[in-house]
Structures are given as structure tokens and as C-alpha cells.
């Protein structure tokens, strides 16, 4: 008996299509209930932009419906404002020192707190060298609509794992959240195109902030401008532009 047939077929049909808020999918009671088979109840995972309301699934953001087997669905939307999510890594700006925590601006609706002990190798004696105005790459330990967000620069085992305060140099730019997700996707085509240009360092925060450093200021600026223009280009346009840059036309 295929239970997937009735329930999620409608949703799977819509994968890759553009949906708008208010679109509904009804998962009513199944017509056939098998008593002999002890089939496991199917569980669908609703990602960003989808919401369960009773026996219906309601779309609450406009965007493209995406699907990942077996039953994970989400809406891929282009937006600019970041909403903190637990476990995501972001680039923050230290705005103040308050006692034994730093206040970090990550582009959300409030400031996050970052304890000075949440750095690799930090102890009560050995404080990290972080000043107001510095950039930090950190991940959310607490991100909840009802609580103050909290950042840490260590993973579960106390290692920095690439996180911490940034060194000198480089340039911080802001791009859309959709572009950030495209950059971070495995085998991202934008990243592959960029790798072929010239060596550069990229730090991508889920909050839409991207830090770039290449061997010269000129190259850093080229990479920054290319990234910012990626949002409004189709794949062909982008590849054409990258080819022109490679030939030294720009």
C-alpha cells in the first residue's frame, strides 16, 4: 500500500513552482485505512514559509516550493531581513561591552549577547582580545522569538571550528539571504565560478553578510561587486560577466 500517493502527491506536484501566502494543501483523512499493515505514520517536515494549521498545510511566504526526500518541504524566498535561527552561523558586529558579555549586532530585530567565555581557550583570567567594532563569526546557541538571542564562538566540544573574531583587512558586504543560501549550498555554481577567477577568502554568514579578502584591494572590490550583482542575474548573464572579468575586461 502506498500511503505517499494520496497525501503528499499534491504537494510534490507543486515542487519548483511559485506559491503565495494563503495557498493551502489539505491532508484530509485517508480513504483507505489498513488494519493488517502496521504502517508507520508518515511525518512531513515543514521548513521555513510553511505552517501547519489543523489538517492543512498553509503557505505563509511567497517563494519557490522546494523538497528534499523523503518528506521535507520548505519555501525558498528572497528576503533581506534576517530572523535568527538556532545553530546558524552569522557575521556580527560587536557594538558594546556589557560586564562579561559583548552585545553583537547581527542584523536582526534585537542585539544578541556573546559571553567572553564563549571563545576558544578563553578563561576568567585569559580574556579574548575583542574590541568594540570588531567583526565576529559566531553561531546561535539560543534563537527563540521569546528570548534574547545568544551567540557563541565555540562548538559543542569547545573548539573554535572556524569561528571567532576577524583579523585585519578584508571587506564586509551585504547581500540578500537567498544569495547567501545559494553560496552555501553544496557544489554551489556561483562559488565554482568564483573559484576560477582568482584566489580569495570568503566568510558567508547566514544573515546576509559576506566578508571578502583577496590578494589586493582591487581584487577584493571586484569580488565584492560581482557577488552583489549576482542576485539580479540569470546563470548565463553571470557566466558571461565572470568570463569578461577573467579576460581582464573589467
Amino acid at each position: 500500500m502506498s500511503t505517499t500517493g494520496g497525501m503528499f502527491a499534491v504537494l510534490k506536484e507543486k515542487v519548483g513552482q511559485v506559491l503565495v501566502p494563503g495557498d493551502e494543501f489539505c491532508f484530509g483523512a485517508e480513504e483507505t485505512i489498513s488494519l493488517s499493515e502496521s504502517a508507520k505514520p508518515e511525518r512531513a517536515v515543514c521548513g521555513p514559509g510553511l505552517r501547519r494549521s489543523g489538517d492543512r498545510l498553509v503557505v505563509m511566504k511567497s517563494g519557490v516550493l522546494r523538497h528534499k526526500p523523503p518528506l521535507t518541504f520548505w519555501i525558498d524566498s528572497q528576503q533581506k531581513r534576517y530572523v535568527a535561527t538556532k545553530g546558524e552561523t552569522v557575521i556580527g558586529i560587536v557594538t558594546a561591552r556589557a560586564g562579561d558579555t559583548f552585545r553583537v549586532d547581527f542584523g536582526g530585530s534585537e542585539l544578541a549577547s556573546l559571553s567572553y567565555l564563549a571563545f576558544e581557550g578563553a578563561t576568567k583570567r585569559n580574556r579574548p582580545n575583542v574590541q568594540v567594532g570588531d567583526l565576529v563569526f559566531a553561531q546561535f546557541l539560543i534563537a527563540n522569538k521569546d528570548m534574547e538571542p545568544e551567540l557563541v564562538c565555540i562548538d559543542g566540544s569547545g573548539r573554535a571550528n572556524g569561528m571567532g573574531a576577524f583579523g585585519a583587512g578584508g571587506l564586509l558586504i551585504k547581500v540578500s539571504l537567498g544569495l547567501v543560501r545559494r553560496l552555501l549550498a553544496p557544489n554551489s555554481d556561483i562559488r565554482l565560478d568564483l573559484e576560477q577567477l582568482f584566489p580569495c577568502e570568503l566568510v558567508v554568514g547566514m544573515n546576509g553578510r559576506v566578508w571578502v579578502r583577496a590578494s589586493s584591494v582591487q581584487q577584493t572590490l571586484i569580488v565584492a561587486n560581482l557577488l552583489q550583482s549576482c542576485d539580479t542575474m540569470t546563470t548565463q548573464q553571470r557566466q558571461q560577466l565572470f568570463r569578461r572579468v577573467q579576460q581582464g575586461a573589467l
Partner: protein
Amino acid sequence: MEVSAPSNVSLREFGCEQSLLSRPDGSASFVQGDTSVMAGVYGPAEVKVSKEIYDRATLEVLVQPKVGLPSVRERSQEQCVRETCEEALLLTLHPRSSLTLVLQVLHDDGSLLSCCLNAACMALMDAGLPMSCLFCGVTCAISAYGQIITDPTSAQEKESRALMTFAIDSKERKVMMSSTKGSFSVHELQQCVAVSQRASERIFQFYRDSVRRRYSKSL
């Protein structure tokens, strides 16, 4: 009560562009004939302590007229738009934050409030704010001879006996907000609601096409 209304609903040509401004989190411009409104949405952002609501977001709507400072007329439009948006948005998902919607009137040639509502909906959608449904605005004018004109121009508005604007939701085509001026009978009101509901179908289809066009590059 059975309401009969003319089957063809005429609306002026409308057009829309989303995310045309770089600074706001969401923006849209909406054009209905010669009436044109630009909308910008900021948020969820930090909120002033005095305006903080502990279990939902604070929505602020500002209507900027083409010339001069906002007055009583703009205040009433702000209230109509704000109450409609509050109904459509899922504000409880962003407690203790602020949402600001700025509507700049670029040109007024009738049906301004409905154009403001349409621009607001497109801008909120562009900002990616969680919404339970979409909404659209439809203006109906009743001429001196009792004829219903949808989406009137300013000249038609001036000649009309009554003027009504409805906000219609996309789920059940229910009336979310109504703003009326002039004298009319109950029957005429019901006819206007029915006409607006029919007109809303076309606007919602246009919304969908316009969003699809916007996401065409990431399909």
C-alpha cells in the same frame, strides 16, 4: 438574499514592481491607471519601549501625500491600511519587534486607497513577512444613475453619489475592511461587495503572475 451584478468587471490597467528600492527590507510600486503608489517595508526591527507589545509585532503605517504634510485624510487611510495588514500578517511570530510600512503617493487619479492596499500587500510579500493570506483593495463608485463603476478615476469619483473601498482576502474572498462615503441602499452595498469580490479574482491572479515573474530567475 440573491445579489445580481453585471458579469463584466472593468478595472484599469494595473502594474507592479517588487524590490525596486535597495534600502528597505521589502518594497513595491503599484500602478492602477494613472494612480501610482510606492511602498516600503522595514522590519522586523528593534522597537521603541513605549510602543512594544509583549506578544506581537507593532505595525506602523505611514502615508505620505504627493505634496505637503500628512493630514487627517492620510491618517484615516493609514488606519484603514494598518487594520487590514494587522489582520493578514501573523504578527505573533515576531513579538517585541516593529514593522514599518511607508506608502508614498506618487500620483492620485482616483481609487487611491485601493492602490495603497495593493502596494502594501506586494511590499509585505516582498519583505517575506509571515502572512496568513493576501489581500487586495477594490474601489467602487455608484454614479448618479445608480451604475456601479469599479476602479473609478478622480473625475468619476467626483461625479459619483457614493464611493466605497473594500479590502478582500484571498482565502475566502471575505471583506476585511470597508471604507464608504456618500449615500446608498443596503442592496447597492451588497452589489458592490459582490462586484469587488469578482474583481479581486483578477487582482489576485495578477499578484501571482507578478511574484512568479520575480522568482523566474531562481526557478
